[in-house]
């Protein structure tokens, strides 16, 4: 599998480490009233779709960047690759 890195171009998947669902970017507010339930969902509940799936990959043997890769879990077709930093900033995160 080849991942087309937004900065570095196509790289072999062996250079990357897979983390999991990209929703891990959205860590709940620990001060919220429902923090316990929110963290339970954040830690354990996953949709596990057969099809399109946004997931986090870490370019460990490369520039050490985190990516959000949108991949079809049934065909391995990759439809988009974004820097996780850009995705988090687009969601209004300051840094």
């Amino acid at each position, binding site marked *: 599998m080849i991942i087309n890195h937004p*900065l*570095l*171009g196509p*790289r*072999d998947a*062996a*250079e990357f480490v897979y983390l999991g669902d990209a929703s891990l970017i959205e860590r709940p507010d620990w001060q919220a009233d429902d923090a316990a339930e929110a963290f339970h969902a954040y830690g354990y509940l996953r949709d596990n779709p057969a099809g399109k799936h946004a997931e986090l990959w870490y370019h460990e*043997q*490369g*520039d*050490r*960047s985190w990516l959000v890769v949108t991949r079809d879990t049934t065909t391995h077709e990759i439809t988009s690759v974004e*820097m996780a*930093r850009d995705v988090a900033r687009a969601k209004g995160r300051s*840094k």
Partner: protein
Amino acid sequence: MPEYTLTSAAPLAGTDISVAGTRLMAPADLAIVSVALPLGEEKPAGKAIRAAYGVALPEVGKSSLAKDDSRLVRLGSDLAFVIFVHPTPDAERVVAARLKGAAYTTDQTDVWVALDLSGPSARRALERICPIDLHPDVFAIGDSARTMMEHLGTLIIRTGDDSYRLLSGSSSAGSFLHAIETSLANIT
């Protein structure tokens, strides 16, 4: 009590192998200093680098050669290496002084080992172990890439038409040399 005198020795010092006109050697006295760009202060850091070295901070995947032969390699959006010949163990202070505090510097000299591969078969020697496309039209002179060769994290820089500088972790220097040496021997 006996008195001991310790002498520092580079892991691959003295390596110089030639196979079919292609040479693999370990450059001496190479210093490596990492330059991390402060978050939100990337522009002033870039300006300080240009003022200190006379060349712009290269784009990710590129490197540039300063007038004093220091090579600036951009490893990621906020990280670069300065690679230069400097025999004394104070490379970080030298780079920090030149950048006047505009970026975070860390000495990486002893963490890496370097091998220079050059000659007409250099590309053939790398094609079995390097996952990066090294076609001359794709990987131009000055281009750099952090990847892995035989499972060892490697930084490759194209330094000339048929010459490459390879850097890998010094703790696995022997295995790294073995990997490159074996691949070089396989071209014949």
